[in-house]
């Protein structure tokens, strides 16, 4: 995991990818009990190429470094990494406000707990609902921040349905 994060930092330093942050279950595990996952979700800002948002230059650069594609993911130092370009305003905000943390001595970034909860609400699958339950039970959520995010992204009604 440390080597995978070091590889991501190197890609960011070299400008292959823009700002990145860990999301999904691995980021959730930063705040709550460990939850089973098989891939590392990495949200990235990608440069637009001819008006298109494309992962192709990133995948080319990864291939040049010897990292092979495996389905939707790229195997980076033993960890299947799924790169997810930020594709809506909630994800853009989540990436911009991601927090700097250390994995052992390796610097990286994770999405804030409140953004992870809002993304679960927006995505809306059964497993997202269960994850929201775990966040509410185990994480130290800043409710003012969370309610602000839910309001800005029109997710209040769904939040009420899930939590009433």
């Amino acid at each position, binding site marked *: 995991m440390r080597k995978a994060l070091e590889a991501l930092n190197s890609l960011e330093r070299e400008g292959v990818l823009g700002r990145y942050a860990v999301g999904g279950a691995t980021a959730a*595990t930063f705040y709550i*009990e460990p939850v089973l996952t098989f891939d590392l979700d990495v949200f990235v800002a990608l440069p637009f190429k001819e008006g298109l948002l494309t992962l192709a230059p990133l995948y080319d650069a990864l291939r040049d470094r010897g990292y092979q594609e495996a389905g939707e993911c790229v195997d980076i130092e033993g960890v299947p990494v799924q790169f997810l370009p930020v594709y809506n305003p909630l994800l853009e905000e989540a990436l911009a406000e991601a927090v700097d943390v250390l994995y052992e001595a390796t610097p990286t970034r994770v999405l804030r707990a409140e953004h992870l909860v809002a993304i679960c609400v927006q995505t809306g699958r059964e497993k997202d609902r269960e994850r929201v339950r775990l966040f509410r039970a185990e994480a130290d959520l800043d409710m003012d921040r969370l309610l602000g995010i839910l309001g800005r992204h029109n997710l209040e009604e769904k939040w009420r349905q899930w939590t009433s």
Partner: protein
Amino acid sequence: MAAVDELAPEIARLFHAKEERRRKLAALPWPDKVRAVVTLQRMAVPLLKNRDPRAQVWRIEEDDRD
């Protein structure tokens, strides 16, 4: 927790202990929790590998022991 408290005392104690264990797990350092995820993967892969091609164990032990 009110509903749990209405259970027989022994059952309520078990539920409380389970909640307490989950809170302790949540408080572990992130690398320890990632190692726990890998343990979960080892348990799950034999059950899932035939129906979920993504199911594989991360190969991170060596790099995390450096």
